Structure formats: structure tokens, C-alpha cells
């Protein structure tokens, strides 16, 4: 989509044309936003810190899924399973290999990416529902493998849970979530810059061409197999990063913490609600759905206090209900997601006296 720019906003050099942040006031807003983001955990509110951490690693996972589903057009129902792989890789890397956290996080990404490549192999022959099915198979097979009694010593066996050591850096322990959240935010910022740049390169344009018409893309010289596998690798790599962040922040990893099919569906839903194939989508979708889920949890807890007899069902039922409703309503009324709304809002602000 062509970016609408106000009159008088010209590029005078190549650097200027390629720059992400165009104007001085944008730098100002960006720096002010970052300062706000990084002082937020210092306010000491536990809810803000946990939610911020959750949003940060979810955004990382969503950015990977966005590259695969939003840009390359391959449906994946296995993102949560790749997160699980990343979590285990990070945990085992830190525990068994003694990697410091700044190595074990990319290590987790690499391992998850390689697993993602295996399950991306069918993407050459099949697409659409069929590919969704292949990734669905990944979503069932990987958590099952981690629960095997044979790997109990390493992966936690039928309980499906291992402990992950505290992140330490130069004698400083990131044991508290209020400290660890900075690592999550840092990784989130790095991956954000990375995804924005990936989508602007040859690879990103190849992804989009595969999505829009894969046969035409092949005729234009895009090697479908390479690019689909690259998209799968990137998606799983980001999922691995997200999984490692989640494992370190929850101080454990395993199927006890979730990582099921519901979570993969949740990621796809967040992406659609935020806006598929947009750089803003993962942020808006993650924030929206996580807040909706928290609302659902709060509502369930409040109602459970009033009706203690039905506490169990009230606590668990509102999350899928709210998420499903939000997803269905967005698909019917705003299939292009919140990012599209934001764009409309910006356009109408620019055209202010004349916009509807």
C-alpha cells in the first residue's frame, strides 16, 4: 500500500529515502515512547510488569507468524509448538551447555528454526488447508514428543515441565520479572527492526509475491521452495526467541504452561485482529487480545466470587468465549484489522477539514 505523505515531504538523498524514521519530530516521539516504555516497569505494578512481558514475547512470536502468514500467505497452526521447542532449547542450553542468556536466546531461535524447516517441507507440495493440516500435525506431535517418558531426564516427562535457571549477566541476576522485562523488551525492539527491514528487502518482496500469486512469482524467478522454507525458518526462529523469553520469565518450560493448539489459534487470531501483513499488526493484535483475555479472567474471577459453586467453569469459559467473539466480529466487520483502522484515522487527520 502506497504510503500517503503530506505535501512538501521530499527525500533528497538515498539514505533519506530508505530511512525508517523520517523527521525530527518522529525521532522525538520515538525516543519519548521508548523512555515511557522503559520506565513503565519501574512503577512497580505487578500487573503492568507481567502484562508488558507477556505482550513483549507475544509480539516477537507474532512477528514471525506475520512474516509466514501475513507476508508469505502460508497458514501455520503450529506457532505455539515452535515456541515450546525454543523454550526447551533455551532452558537446556542454559542448564546443560551453560550458555549465557545472550547466547541461549538466539540458540533457541536456531533450534526452533531448524524444527520449523522440517515441518515447512510439505509447503512445497501443498498449500491452503493442506498446509494448515501439516502444521496442525506439528502442533500435536511436538508437545507429545516432549512428554515422552524416555526424555524425562531432559524434558520433564509426563508432567511436561523443567525448571529454567535465572538469567544472570555480569553478576547481575534478572530473577525478578521487573528486571527481566527489559530483556524481553530489548528482544522485541530488535526483532521489530529486523522484521521491518526483512519486509523491505528482496526477500520480503519475494514473500509478498508468493502470497499474492505463487505461480506468477515462480515465473518471475522467485524460487518458491527457497522462499517458503525461509519464511518457515524465520517464523519458527522468532517463535523460538519468544519461547525462550517466555521460558526464562516463567522460570520453567513445558506443556504444563500451555503451548497447545488453542495458543496457536490465539496467535493467528491476534494477527488477524491486528492486521495481517502490516508491521503494526502484531503490536495492536497482541495488546488488544491480551487485554481482552485479562478482562475475561477478571470477569470470571469476579463472577466466581459471587457464584462459588460454578467457580471452575466461570474461570475457564470466558477466555475462549471472548476471544472467539472478538475474532468472529473482526472477521465480519473489519477483516483488515486494527492496523487498517489506524491508517484510516491517520488519513482522516491529515485531510482533516475534508475527511468524513
Amino acid at each position, binding site marked *: 500500500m502506497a504510503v500517503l505523505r503530506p505535501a512538501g515531504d521530499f527525500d533528497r538523498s538515498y539514505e533519506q529515502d530508505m530511512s525508517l524514521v523520517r523527521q525530527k519530530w518522529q525521532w522525538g516521539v520515538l525516543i519519548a515512547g521508548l523512555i515511557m516504555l522503559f520506565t513503565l516497569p519501574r512503577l512497580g505494578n505487578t500487573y503492568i510488569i507481567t502484562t508488558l512481558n507477556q505482550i513483549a514475547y507475544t509480539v516477537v512470536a507474532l512477528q514471525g507468524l506475520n512474516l509466514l*502468514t501475513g507476508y508469505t*500467505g502460508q*497458514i501455520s497452526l503450529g506457532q505455539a509448538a515452535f515456541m515450546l521447542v525454543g523454550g526447551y532449547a533455551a532452558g537446556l542450553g542454559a542448564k546443560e551447555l551453560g550458555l549465557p542468556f545472550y547466547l541461549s536466546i538466539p540458540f533457541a531461535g536456531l533450534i526452533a528454526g531448524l524444527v520449523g524447516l522440517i515441518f515447512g*517441507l*510439505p509447503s512445497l*507440495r*501443498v498449500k*491452503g*488447508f*493442506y498446509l*494448515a*493440516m*501439516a502444521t*496442525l*500435525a506439528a502442533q*500435536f*506431535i511436538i508437545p*507429545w514428543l516432549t512428554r*515422552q*517418558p*524416555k526424555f524425562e531426564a531432559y524434558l520433564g516427562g509426563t508432567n511436561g515441565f523443567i525448571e529454567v535457571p535465572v538469567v544472570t549477566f555480569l553478576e547481575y541476576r534478572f530473577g525478578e520479572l521487573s528486571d527481566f522485562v527489559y530483556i524481553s523488551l530489548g528482544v522485541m525492539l530488535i526483532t521489530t527492526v529486523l522484521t521491518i527491514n526483512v519486509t523491505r528487502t528482496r526477500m520480503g518482496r519475494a514473500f509478498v509475491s508468493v502470497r499474492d*500469486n505463487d*505461480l*506468477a512469482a515462480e*515465473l518471475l524467478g522467485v524460487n518458491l521452495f527457497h522462499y517458503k522454507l525461509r519464511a518457515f525458518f524465520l517464523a519458527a526462529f522468532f517463535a523460538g526467541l519468544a519461547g525462550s523469553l517466555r521460558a526464562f520469565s516463567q522460570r520453567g518450560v513445558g506443556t504444563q504452561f500451555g503451548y497447545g493448539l*488453542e495458543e496457536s*489459534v490465539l496467535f*493467528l*487470531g491476534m494477527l*488477524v485482529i491486528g492486521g*495481517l501483513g502490516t508491521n503494526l499488526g502484531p503490536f495492536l493484535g497482541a495488546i488488544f487480545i491480551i487485554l481482552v483475555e485479562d478482562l475475561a479472567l477478571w470477569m470470571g474471577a469476579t463472577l466466581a466470587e459471587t457464584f462459588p459453586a*460454578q467457580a*471452575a*467453569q*466461570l474461570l*475457564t*469459559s*470466558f*477466555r*475462549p*468465549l*471472548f*476471544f*472467539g*467473539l472478538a*475474532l*468472529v466480529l473482526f*472477521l*465480519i466487520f473489519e*477483516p483488515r484489522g486494527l492496523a487498517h483502522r489506524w491508517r484510516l484515522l491517520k488519513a482522516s487527520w491529515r485531510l482533516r477539514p475534508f475527511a468524513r
Partner: protein
Amino acid sequence: MEKRTKRIRNLFVTIGVALLVVWLIRPYTNWILVPQQIINGILNGGTLALIALGIVLIYKASEVFNFAAGHMVMIGAYLVWWFAGGVGETALISLPLWAAIIAGMIVAVFIGFFIERFALRPMTGQPLLAIVLMTLGLAQIMQGLTTVLFGVTPKGNFPAPFSPSDVFNIPIAPINDVSIVFLNRLQLGHARLATFIVALLAAAIFVAFFNYTRTGLAMRATSENHELAQSVGIKVSRVFGLSWAIAGVIATLGGILLATLTGVSLSLSTVALAAFPAILLGGLESFLGAIVGGLLVGITVALVQTSTIVEVRNSAEIAPYVLLLIVLLIRPEGLFGQKRIERI
């Protein structure tokens, strides 16, 4: 001529591969259990085949792949359980089983129509991902609604007409001069046999409906070509609604059959998910494929359980998905599906 030789060659290749597989797994299989497990697999696969039929029906009519099928199965089972007074003394309504089944099916018809009209109709012409996500979103809503209405604890008191523990014993003379020794009897569970017969009957009714009634013919015409069907006076939107309604009835029936064996619980939706591998194995566009695929998945799961290796035995729960991956890599269109020919 060429086609025929190709077919014969394929037949030989298939038989050869099958023999090779049997020879390879020979030392790791408990052959005594195999005949019994094949029968169990076929009986279990009948229910899967029925659920798969419902998904194929919707796919053929409207090219929507119904990921919510598992949850429709679950809701159907819960509805029948509720109408039959499963709640206990505080039940609002307590019907005999046959009436509860009919009531559950009527509600399922309305749910089907409702889903088609208010969720899928606005999605006409949207990309594939949006439609997939719509059915996934519907599945989440159904999950939430079922939990809030019926609670999280599994209900063991499904009013099944057959107890799962009753069995028919069929004596078989032991064959001693062959290295493969059968147990000298085969067991047929009453409940399993009954569910299989019901599933088979339902599938037969379903096929008859499609071949001999006016509405069924209209639905087949629609699945061939929407525009042509519309031009000969078939109301395509009505056919879509009808296909969802029938799928609702089929899912409810599948739910009843599953619940007869295991009781009603939220995990029924996961059990019914094994119908997806069945469909892809059989081919997305084929009713026959759905039935054969369901039976094959049932047999595969049962045979995996006869292995002497404990790790392989444990893998019964993911066996359908491994099978699915193999099918996708070797023959993505399935056994009876149409090969895709793509044009720009």
C-alpha cells in the same frame, strides 16, 4: 490401454510396499492381537468416518473447511446429554433417550443454519485464511459456551443404550501350523458394534439422500458449479444453509456415538479432530474417501497399539497425525481426491 497398465503397476507397487512394511515391522508386532485390533479399529473408525462425512459435505458445498467440526460433535453430545436429564435432580427436562436424540438433532439443525447465516455468509469471497479463522473462532465460542453452560467436569452418566463392557465372543479355531497364532476368540464390544452399525446406516442414508432425492441432487449440482446451479434455479444460499444443518445433525450423531463409548467431556472435540487426517487421507472432495479414510485411521491407531515397543504403543494418540504428514508428502490429494491443476 496405457491407463490400465499404469493401474496394474500401481497395484503391484502398493502390494509390494505393504508386504515390505509388514516384513519390516514383523519382529516388533504382537501378531496375536492383530486380528482383534483390526476389528476394533474398523469399529472405532466408523464414527470417525461419519464425522469426516460431515466435514466433506460442507467442503463440497461451499469450499469451507470446518475446523469447528470437533466442537460441533462435542456440543451435540452435551445437548443430548442435557435433554436426557443428565444434570440430575435439578434437570429442567428429562426425556427418554430417543426423544433426547431427536431434540438434540433439532437444536443442531438450528445451530447449523445459524452458523451459516450469520458467520459464514458474510465471509463469501473472503480469502482462505479468513474463512479458516472464522471456523476456528466459532470453535472457540462453542468451547466457551459449552464450558459456561455445562461445566468442566466430564459427565460419565451418558444414557447409552449399551454398556461398553458387554462383549460378544466369537470362537475361532486356533491355527497351529502357521507361525501366526490367533487368540482363539474375537471380541466384539456391544457398544462398539452398535456405534459402527449406526455410523454405517447413517452413511448409507446420507449417500441415498444425495443420489435419489431432489434436494440431494440440488446439493450435488451446487458442489459442481455454483453459477450453473444458480442458473438452473437452485438457490445456492439455501443449499449452503442446508449443508451446515445436515452437518450439524451428523456431528450430533457422531457425538452421541463417541459419548456412548467414553462419556461426555470437553475432550470429545479433540477426539473428533482425528477426523481431519481421515479426510485428507481419503481426499477432500470424496464421500467414499471420507469413509475409507475414517476406517483406515481407525485401523492404523489400533494396529499401532499392537506393537511390542512401548514407545510405539504410546504414540497411538499422534499416529493419525503422523499418517497425515506421510500422506501430505507422498500423495497430497489423498486416495480418492482430485488432483489440483492450477492456472494463473
